[in-house]
């Protein structure tokens, strides 16, 4: 192979193909990822488009129809105040997924930024990693409590109660969960920047920011992907616990976590009311994990094509 003369025949000669097609081809071969992708899309469609088809107001209280089992009028039954569970599931899902994805994105950006800066620039390493240690050492729940106490009113009056709380939740979860990502990324960057291809890029004269974008970031994608998918899961769960503690969204505002905790009181009488939000959370988390797994494989050319 090594010494074959270059053949420029028409059939042997292919123009470069966009590498995202290769990524998609590899992604499709990962069965779990494909199934996860379909499930996640289904959930997203149900949550985003569902409310336009199932037009019952999730906050509408019909006290005479409370605690019903599944009927045609209420396919998932009603809760203790007679609100339709299906409508509440869809409304709650929108909030939960939005909180999960947004705060994951925030913590990912923060974590990757700090990890890359600490790993790549030796001078920043000490200060940034001590900063990370500081955040790791902070007791998170009291910190969240303080944040909610301090900013809830201000944000509510500025952006309205729901958006205000949403911003507060996303920020709170985001800035308290980036530390693991930062540490993983820093470790990988430290190893990567001693590799010869980084030296080769330096001998070409590549400036630092393009070095990071072109050589460092694509190579730390794998651990970032993994912590991203795990991050969505833990963000949804953190949001649920905060709602449960009364620190999150207002009690009548449905989220999956809130539905779950409301239903816990009636666990013995109406177990299906725990089942649905629980299933939704689990399916979302699981499908996102599989998507992340498949994406990580698809983005690595060494695994691609196997």
């Amino acid at each position, binding site marked *: 192979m090594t010494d074959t003369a*270059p053949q*420029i025949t028409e059939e042997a000669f292919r123009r470069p193909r966009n590498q995202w097609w290769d990524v998609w081809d590899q992604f499709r071969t990962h069965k779990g990822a494909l199934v996860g992708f379909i499930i996640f899309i289904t959930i997203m469609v149900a949550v985003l488009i569902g409310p336009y088809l199932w037009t019952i107001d999730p906050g509408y209280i019909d006290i005479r129809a409370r605690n019903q089992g599944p009927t045609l009028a209420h396919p998932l039954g009603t809760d203790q105040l007679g609100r339709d569970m299906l409508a509440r599931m869809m409304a709650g899902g929108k909030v939960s997924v939005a909180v999960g994805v947004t705060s994951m994105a925030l913590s990912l950006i923060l974590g990757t930024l700090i990890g890359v800066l600490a790993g790549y620039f030796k001078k920043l390493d000490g200060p940034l990693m001590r900063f990370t240690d500081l955040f790791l050492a902070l007791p998170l729940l009291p910190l969240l409590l303080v944040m909610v106490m301090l900013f809830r009113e201000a944000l509510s009056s500025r952006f309205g109660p729901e958006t205000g709380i949403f911003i507060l939740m996303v920020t709170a979860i985001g800035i308290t969960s980036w530390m693991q990502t930062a540490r993983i990324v820093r470790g990988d960057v430290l190893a990567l920047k001693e590799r*010869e291809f980084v030296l*080769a890029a330096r*001998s*070409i004269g590549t400036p630092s920011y393009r070095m990071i974008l072109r050589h460092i970031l694509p190579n730390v994608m794998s651990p970032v992907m993994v912590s991203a998918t795990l991050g969505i899961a833990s963000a949804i769960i953190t949001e649920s616990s905060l709602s449960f503690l009364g620190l999150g969204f207002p009690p009548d505002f449905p989220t999956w976590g809130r539905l779950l905790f409301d239903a816990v009181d009636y666990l013995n009488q109406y177990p299906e009311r725990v089942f649905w939000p629980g299933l939704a959370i689990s399916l979302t988390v699981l499908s996102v994990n599989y998507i992340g797994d498949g994406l990580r494989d698809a*983005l690595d*050319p*060494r695994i691609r094509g196997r």
Partner: protein
Amino acid sequence: MLDDTPRTLVKVRDLKMHFPIFAGLFRRRVGEVKAVDGVSFDIIEGETLGLVGESGCGKSTCGRAVLRLYDITSGSISIDGQEIGDAGYQKLRPMRPQMQMVFQDPQASLNPRMTVARIISEPLDEHTTLSKAEKQERVYELMDAVGLNRDFANRYPHEFSGGQRQRIGIARALALNPKFIVCDEPIAALDVSIQAQVVNLLEELQDKFNLTYLFISHDLSMVRHIADRVAVMYLGKVAELAPRDALYSKPLHPYTEALLSAVPEPDPNVETRRERIILRGDVPSPAHPPQGCNFSTRCPKVMDICHQSDPDMQEVEPGHFVACHLYPPTTKPTTKNMVASEANKSIQQGE
């Protein structure tokens, strides 16, 4: 150093590259590894300077320091008349296209997430304003030049053999039409049959593009094949610098003699009768080099003066430089005298 009729492209003077050692609770600076400690040489345009020495003697560090991949401790490096020893990033960047590097490990020197086309076009992205189609055309030209099938452009480095990967690395180094290429053991990670291919390719390209090489290697036979002049390094210093034939036929420095005696002989009859000079002991740590001559701890011809003062580089014969006390600076012995005096000295050592 040499007469100036051929143009000197690279001029290195008293290059020092010391890496600090930090130790203890407070990470205090306790010393330094003198990886390269006062190296001087010239490279003439179009020639190949071989740089040989055993592992850890500072060959690679020297090569990288010449390209300013490190911030050098002191010394001066000038390439094509421009001083780059103390140049900052901004001044270096426009110089980069002239000087490129081929790396030792072809696996590690290619980004596993980039296609061959992207790897080769990276220098073009950085330093040229070619359009996408022009870049692609240039990439194909380069792939032709190094003997890679154009169809490989969309593949990833892990899909290639070691020799092919090294060709990709060479194509990348050639992308900007450099004048000077540092080959940092480009063949050390390849098996023997591929080594010949890659070295022949390097020679071919040198003729075609009038390249100047600094060829770093520990393979003396290969250096003999490719180099015009050879510098022998020991523990961060150049022990001997001479035209190839002079060095191989008549090594002056005892270290060069020992190195050359380790080269295996293809003829089994000669091989069995060959007398090897076996050096005792290990290379001293570059963090604590011995007093006097660096080689004094292992030299078979060591003298008292070797433990006291470091020999200077001196021109013993035209173009033949050696740093050794065996050759006193005042006299310029002819070949016969030298052999005789050498013999005398080894007898004196025996006493």
